[in-house]
């Protein structure tokens, strides 16, 4: 650990655009084998690029060294504990990468004749059936590209459902604990968010819900368990209040990892569910994507589902169908993130019914064990749990006493955890918990890892009492230390300054 002046190696942060030399290259163009044709013979000059794009001029070994070097400046799930609340950072089995890379999957063109893509369509159909069973809802569309797009699908479906009944319902109820995607989605779908308060137990405030439900409400979007890691004990009452008003119940499946085989959204009364395949069904997160956000819906929502849909005939033959006159249409190109479907399907095949239930059981066991360890003396005084006695798959603590008594913020604790080799939890969310830490250990972590994490938190708090400055200056052992984010916003530098004079648009409108 170096706390003193660092040795700054300018080479470390040089971008690929600052490497190489004119004339250097990795690509060798195959011979054209056909009569030569200069673009200018076919296209007038005003349609042609005037100078080659200033892409890097580098050799293949330079590219490999550069990106391998960059990779070493990342923390990753394969290297250590990554308890990001709400993100479900569980182990990524390498089998999934192997089966996704089979040429019959990876090199299958999306417009291949369905006759010649029967294996892919069958895989998608089987995944749909499995997700349907997990949701307790009969119909599934795999199309949405991510949870956020699944949400948009859900709200647009809700709109279509009401409009088909001649109703223009404008409001969507969202608890104040919700992910920011929920209200952002509502705005994109042209509706208005109405916030529902959280009660003293961390659940939906039923009085506030009753006060806000009326015949202008299109739906309630709910995460259950919610972002406090709590299963709403009033879910049956919530569903009945919403349904009585003629509104739809939307389930944000971000926290489905807590309830597989335990409880199903359809059985709770929800009409629409989105899944995050990249969370619950363990896709590698790739440093921020890709993901996949299929939705499951009830019978009354089904007519509006996106196209294309997979149709299975009695002889076991599959087709893609666009025949759905009341469909909201499509949300993206082709059939969705098939590469993610392969991985999720492999995961479901590996675990089966009992294994998926075991996932949720151990996820909840691990979270409660970690909650118990973090309730020990020396920790709980500074980081009390925000609500409740038990939790589901994740736990939320408040760093408010730590801030008050030790003058150390949740951010400082998070940064110090980096020096201990742990990725910090989600911090400052949910918004209604002051100095929040949101911890989701997942089922794939061992008891030893949970113990080591709890010990590290205790050690850091002890350190905070004696030498808080170490926390305030943390991290000390990472490739860079705290970064000036304010300057990054005030004077944005969003691309490399390239050697030639920057080009100006010829047609400044």
């Amino acid at each position, binding site marked *: 650990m170096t706390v003193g002046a660092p040795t700054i190696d300018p080479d470390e942060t040089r971008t690929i655009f600052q490497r190489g030399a004119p004339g250097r290259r990795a690509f060798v163009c195959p011979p054209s084998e056909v009569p030569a044709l200069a673009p200018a013979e076919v296209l007038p000059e005003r349609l042609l690029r005037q100078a080659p794009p200033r892409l890097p001029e580098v050799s293949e070994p330079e590219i490999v060294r550069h990106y391998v070097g960059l990779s070493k400046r990342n923390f990753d799930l394969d290297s250590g504990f990554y308890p990001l609340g709400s993100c479900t950072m569980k182990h990524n089995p390498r089998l999934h990468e192997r089966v996704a890379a089979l040429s019959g999957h990876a090199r299958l063109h999306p417009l291949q004749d369905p006759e010649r893509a029967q294996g892919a369509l069958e895989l998608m159909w089987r995944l749909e059936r499995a997700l349907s069973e997990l949701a307790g809802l009969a119909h599934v569309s795999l199309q949405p590209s991510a949870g956020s797009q699944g949400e948009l699908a859900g709200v647009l479906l809700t709109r279509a459902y009401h409009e088909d009944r001649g109703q223009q319902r404008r409001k969507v109820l969202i608890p104040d604990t919700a992910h920011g995607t929920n209200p952002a989605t509502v705005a994109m779908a042209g509706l208005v968010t109405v916030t529902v308060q959280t009660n003293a137990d961390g659940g939906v405030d039923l009085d506030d819900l009753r006060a806000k439900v009326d015949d202008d409400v299109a739906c309630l979007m709910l995460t259950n368990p919610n972002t406090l890691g709590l299963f709403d004990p009033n879910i049956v009452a919530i569903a009945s209040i919403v349904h009585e008003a003629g509104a739809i119940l939307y389930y944000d499946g971000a926290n489905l990892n807590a309830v597989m085989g335990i409880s199903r959204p359809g059985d709770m009364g929800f009409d629409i569910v989105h899944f995050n395949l990249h969370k619950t069904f363990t896709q590698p997160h790739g440093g921020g994507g890709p993901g996949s956000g299929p939705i499951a819906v009830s019978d009354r929502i089904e007519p509006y589902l996106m196209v294309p849909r997979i149709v299975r005939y009695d002889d076991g033959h599959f087709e893609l169908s666009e025949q759905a006159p009341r469909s909201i249409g499509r949300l993206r190109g082709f059939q969705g993130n098939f590469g993610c479907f392969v991985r999720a399907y492999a995961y479901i095949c590996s675990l089966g019914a009992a294994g998926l239930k075991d996932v949720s059981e151990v996820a909840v066991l691990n979270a409660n064990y970690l909650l118990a360890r973090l309730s020990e003396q020396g920790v709980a005084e500074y980081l009390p749990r925000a609500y409740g006695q038990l939790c589901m798959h994740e736990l939320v603590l408040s760093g408010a006493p730590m801030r008050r008594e030790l003058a150390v913020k949740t951010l400082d604790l998070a940064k110090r955890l980096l020096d201990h080799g742990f990725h910090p939890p989600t911090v400052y969310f949910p918004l209604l918990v*002051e100095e929040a830490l949101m911890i989701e250990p997942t089922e794939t972590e061992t008891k030893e890892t949970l113990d080591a994490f709890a010990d590290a938190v205790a050690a850091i708090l002890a350190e905070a009492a004696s030498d808080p400055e170490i926390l305030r200056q943390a991290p000390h052992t990472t490739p860079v230390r705290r970064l000036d984010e304010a300057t990054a916003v005030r004077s944005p530098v969003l691309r490399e300054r390239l050697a030639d004079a920057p080009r100006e648009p010829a047609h400044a409108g």
Partner: protein
Amino acid sequence: MAPASYPQDLLYHPEHDWARIEGDEATLGITWYAQDVLGEVVFFDLPSVGTVVSQGEAYAEVESVKAVSDVIAPLSGEIVAVNDALAAGPQAINEDPYGDGWLVKIRLADPSGRESLLDSESYAAGLTSTTGQA
């Protein structure tokens, strides 16, 4: 950053905004407390001169790295000047919230609006009663 202060010569809106009334015009800004909660201000989306603002309603946004806050008009009126210097130097809101960090000047629409505002002491008292919650 300046130390905490709530000057006596200003009037305050409970949403952490201040007004300095001079004749039929008022200068508006956000309080020391507001900028402290926000953290380093990185962007102020300047409203246009001529915009009409209403007491108690948002007329602009101020942003830090990870938060956006509505700026509430403590009084009603029409914007007659905006602090253009904030476009290049929004940190003035942190460094001098009652001076160089002023946001807009308005021509007052309704002189009686001031009666619902707080003086320095009442505003500061309200702050201590709402801070320190777990």
